[in-house]
């Protein structure tokens, strides 16, 4: 199978389930909403080393937000409800509450037993001067700030999302591989309900499970490192590949992840790209197998 003469490997991306939430950050302007969102989603690339995988889903028009101000939608993913709750409350507390003019709202429906508190934890910062307002079934906390007050929804809903949807772009040069990866990331970002948690949506550090060093859970995926091609027997790279970038996608649903992968792969298939493949761990990591040829053929 080829797209624009770029061969698509008969491989599958191995994704796994995670608990996910959507956080809506608003502010007096898009600029300040973006600043808060960028801060809150920082250091959120991989659950291997971060408390959550995080990223900006999209910017929101004032007509789409609860308070009619510009906003940004963020998605967070973690291993379980408790870990997600702690990560999000800390991030909102340190990066959104502290940011000028912001407010923070839940962006997913709430189901009993599948929620965690954010405003309900941060309210203590109000030192007794915090005020609760209830509207319908939602409680908001108003915490006094030096520029007015910070409004934060008490409870946030969660859903069972999918993390680790991915594909690898094999390029003739670093320049062509990066250009293709940038195009792929841009296309994938257009899909709703997904984030690309790595810097710029692109990963240079493809990993494999385990390491020769015992304490490490993951290490560089040496088979895809072009600098090692002459030194190892199990290189997966053809001779003309000199750079590989990976696009990693987390989504609220399997369908959204597939749609983003599909859009990204189509955008990545351009001159200078030698092939597209996917990262998997032989089925050891997660239950979701997303076959590249299957999702591209089903369009």
């Amino acid at each position, binding site marked *: 199978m080829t797209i624009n003469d770029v061969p698509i490997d008969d491989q599958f991306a191995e994704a796994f389930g995670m608990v996910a939430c959507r956080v809506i950050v608003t502010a007096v302007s898009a600029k300040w909403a973006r600043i808060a969102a960028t801060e809150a989603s920082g250091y959120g690339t991989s659950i291997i080393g971060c408390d959550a995988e995080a990223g900006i889903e999209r910017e929101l028009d004032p007509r789409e937000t609860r308070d009619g101000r510009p906003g940004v939608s963020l998605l967070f993913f973690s291993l379980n409800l408790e870990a997600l709750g702690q990560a999000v409350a800390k991030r909102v507390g340190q990066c959104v509450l502290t940011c000028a003019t912001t407010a923070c709202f839940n962006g997913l429906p709430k189901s009993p037993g599948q929620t965690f508190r954010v405003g309900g934890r941060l309210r203590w910062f109000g030192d007794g001067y915090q005020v609760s*307002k209830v509207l319908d079934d939602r409680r908001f906390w108003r915490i006094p700030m030096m520029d007015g007050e910070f409004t934060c929804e008490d409870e946030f809903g969660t859903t069972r999302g999918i993390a680790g949807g991915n594909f690898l772009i094999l390029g003739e040069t670093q320049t062509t591989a990066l250009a293709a990866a940038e195009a792929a990331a841009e296309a994938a970002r257009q899909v709703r309900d997904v984030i690309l948690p790595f810097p710029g949506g692109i990963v240079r550090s493809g990993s494999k499970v385990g390491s020769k060093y015992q304490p490490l859970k993951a290490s560089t995926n040496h088979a895809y490192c072009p600098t090692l091609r002459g030194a190892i027997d199990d290189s997966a790279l053809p001779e003309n590949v000199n750079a590989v970038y990976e696009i990693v996608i987390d989504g609220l649903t399997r369908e959204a992840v597939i749609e983003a992968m599909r859009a990204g792969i189509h955008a990545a298939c351009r001159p200078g790209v030698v092939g597209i493949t996917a990262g998997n761990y032989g089925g050891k990591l997660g239950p979701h197998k997303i076959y590249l040829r299957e999702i591209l053929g089903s369009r």
Partner: protein
Amino acid sequence: MLRLTRISTSQIPLEAPSIVPDRLTRLRVVEIERLPVQHGSRTEKLAEHFRVTGDAIDSHVLMDGDCSRVKWLGAGMTAGHLHIESSAGMHAGSRMASGTLEVAGSADDWLGVEMSGGLIHVHGAAGDHAGAAYEGSQRGMTGGVILVDGECGLGTGAVMRRGLSATAGCGDFAAASMIAGSLFVFGRLGRFAGAEMKRGTIAVFGSEPELLPTFRKACQFDPTFLRVFLRRLVELGFGPAHGIEVRDVQRFCGDLVSHGQGEILIQK
């Protein structure tokens, strides 16, 4: 949908606490016609005052004809939709817990008193004590939403504990002794508003009320929660909230004779 058409013209008030959608759902027309209503000192059958057609399987009840002297309509309702095409008498929607009560005309005193949930929308005016508490009760409304497109009378939202009440204006003693909750007033706010309120919010748009001296000015700011509430009011079809932009809102803290953790927000 069940339709109840007022056929009697008596000026003596009628008490009809049985006209509640969730209680009528499982009754046949003949059973509904036999329901008791209190007409002055006499207990009579509902059919003597209303023509009954249709059924309430969908929990939807429509009332037409003059109901301005029919008391307790929708009182205590827990589900369904009661639509009154004219005006409603006293105690409409009092102590309701859920469902929707819509009044095309006006409502008399004690509208939504001590309600705990649901939505009341009156397209005309309302009498005294809307969303307040009955004499001797500790708490007024504890949840739900009351929307009055026209003005309300005295004591609106007094002793409110939770919930949202919005009106185009209200008389004296609005939100007096308020414990918590929100009263939004889109016009005239009478004297003694928030007297002895402990917590809660009175938000006033488009007028500059005379406040008690026990309210102290805090600042001018842009409260985000107000935007959230206004947007919800617009979603609920509350006309006076349309086109209101939150900006330069003045905050007054009070009532300082009672906790002082309440607030009156004024946007001129």
